[in-house]
């Protein structure tokens, strides 16, 4: 669990972050969303004290972050950023090994951990371990960056626009992988993004920030259906709202008994994709593999939730 308690940051009297309090439960993902200059990155950097708070406290579990030496605190917290920040003069393996080495792990343990993480991130250690970062693709570099952040098994992982430099296709895959790995490891994750789509896809809760203030901190469905301020509503995007709402659930949630022609779709498909399929193929219902159907009418009803 991580708790931000009335956190503020002032630069020469001007508040960049103003009185933000929020709690992220263990194993949950909190997405900090806002336009540039909203203070979301500053808020994130106050958690691992890359920025020292002017006021307020950060609690990580039962520990007051201000009571630990900054570099010792940071070794307990994973950190991954846009453009990955890999050390260009160190191999992939050496990059991943940095924090375990700082913590004084035994070499055999470090080596095993490197292989384990590389496999987890779908990078063959035999091929990539001894390569330098510049010999990797953007997507691979980004995965190594996250693997490095997770190397010492931190309970908390901070990410600042980690997918910002990736193209849309790789980006979607990276988001899915991150979500899966986060669920598997049970890591608490705070991620900064300017992309509401990404926040909705990844976040268990979304914190919307503007001008240093926290406007709303709520699950995605609530952000979509009950935006706290006009700014949040604008950020969600009225035109996108029904689709985003649909993207939160899978076909399984709307499955009803019945028969429909055509190839059955996977129950894990998002409602948004199901709607797209109905519209594209001009059908009123789609069969779901494992029995049952999902109907266009049901999809419509679910999407209308947002506009009411």
């Amino acid at each position, binding site marked *: 669990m991580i708790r931000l308690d009335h956190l503020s940051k002032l630069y020469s009297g001007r508040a960049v972050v103003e009185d933000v309090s929020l709690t992220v439960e263990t194993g949950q993902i909190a997405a900090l969303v806002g336009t540039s200059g909203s203070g979301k990155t500053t808020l994130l950097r106050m958690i*691992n004290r*890359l920025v020292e708070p002017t006021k307020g406290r950060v609690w990580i579990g039962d520990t007051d972050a201000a009571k630990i030496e900054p*570099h*010792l*605190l*940071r*070794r*307990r*917290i*994973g*950190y*991954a*950023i*846009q*453009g*990955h*920040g*890999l*050390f*260009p*003069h160190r*191999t992939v393996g050496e990059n991943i090994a*940095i*924090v375990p080495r*700082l913590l004084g792990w035994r070499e055999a343990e470090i080596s095993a951990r490197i292989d384990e993480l590389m496999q987890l991130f779908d990078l063959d250690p035999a091929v990539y371990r*001894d*390569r*330098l970062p*510049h*010999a990797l693709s953007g997507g691979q570099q980004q995965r190594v*960056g996250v693997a*490095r*952040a997770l190397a010492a098994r931190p309970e908390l992982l*901070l990410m600042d626009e980690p997918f910002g430099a990736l193209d849309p296709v790789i980006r979607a895959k990276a988001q899915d992988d991150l979500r899966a790995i986060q669920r598997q490891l049970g890591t608490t994750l705070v991620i900064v993004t300017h992309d509401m789509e990404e926040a909705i896809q990844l976040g268990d809760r979304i914190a919307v920030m503007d001008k240093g203030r926290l406007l709303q901190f709520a699950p995605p469905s609530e952000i979509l259906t009950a935006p706290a301020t006009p700014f949040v509503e604008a950020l969600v995007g009225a035109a996108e709202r029904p689709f985003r709402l649909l993207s939160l659930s899978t076909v399984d949630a709307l499955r009803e008994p019945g028969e429909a022609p055509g190839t059955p779709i996977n129950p894990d498909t998002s409602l948004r994709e199901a709607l797209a399929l109905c519209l594209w193929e001009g059908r009123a219902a789609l069969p779901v593999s494992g029995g049952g159907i999902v109907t266009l009418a049901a999809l419509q009803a679910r999407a209308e939730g947002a506009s009411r």
Partner: protein
Amino acid sequence: MRFALPPLSALSPTGLLFAATGAIGLWLPLVQFKPNRIVAGQGVDLIAALPGPAGWAVALGMAAILALGLAAGRGLGLRLGLAVLGLGLSLFALGLAARGLMPEGNRMARVSPAAGFWLQFLAFALMATDALARLRPGIRTRAAILAGAVAAGTGVLASGWLDRTSVMIEYAARAEMFSRSLWQHLLLAFGSLGLAFIVGLPLGIAIFMARPLRKPVLTLLNMLQTIPSLALFGIMIPIFGWVAAHVPGAADLGVAGIGPFPALMALFLYALLPVVSNTWVGLSSVSPAVRDAALGIGMTPAQVLRQVELPLALPVVLAAVRIVLVQNIGLAVIAGLIGGGGFGSFVFQGLNQTAMDLILLGALPTIFLALVAGIGLDLVIETLSRQKHRSTP
């Protein structure tokens, strides 16, 4: 024999340049014959300088090499071989001329290399360099070539073939002083480099970390750099003379107005700007994302500096080593003016006595040292940056 002129496109442009240079060299006097070491001599051309038909043979041989170099399509290895042969021929001709022209028993007369020799030598040296550059040899090969060239140069001098040329006669009279000057010269160049690093590296790190320091420090060093070298060496004399006279113990440490100490200090001051500014530039060029990530995953600022920033700045810092070393090998000549020793002693003695050969005795090894240091350091820098990319597929 009939010559058919090749079409213009078949001519190598660089070959044309080398041939023109070499041709002028063949036409100008090969050596100067002087009744003694300080009077102006009389030029003797290649044909006349060598005994009997040797002059013609050498001239034709050189002309043939230059002509072969004209054709664009020749193999680079062949070109290199021809150029080395040309270099050998010009040295052979110089030695033979000196042997033939020096009257027996006359210890006053001198035979000096003249414009003809220098231009021939230059033409073949350029030809060799050009062929080498196009061959793109690997680092090891280049290191071997450098070592080979140094060994060949030393071998030619040690063989005694050139012993009767004027510069070597000057050398024979001062062999002991020459080796002392060599060590002094190296000490001045490398010592000032070492000092510049001991002071400049921390200073570069300091202006990188403490922004407000940057401008004043770089401005001061820039100003130092603009002082003409003669003037800077001159300024050292009263300053350190005063220090030696008034600061107790300073004189015992070697501080003096003239001699190696002020020379070392002047060279050190010149070396400071490249070292400090390259350290700063190298450190500043480290990507902010890398620095941010390094701190963010829990490195202390000292660890970031040592393990990340300095290693990444290394190529730029090494570039400073190259600049400083080559610059200081040249500038160290001026140390001769204030009694600092080194090859400059010969140069300034030669200037005083209007003895060109003595000036050359100081200038030629200086050029040689600077060339070897420059090429050698290029190889080191390249090796290091290769290592950095060793795992590139």
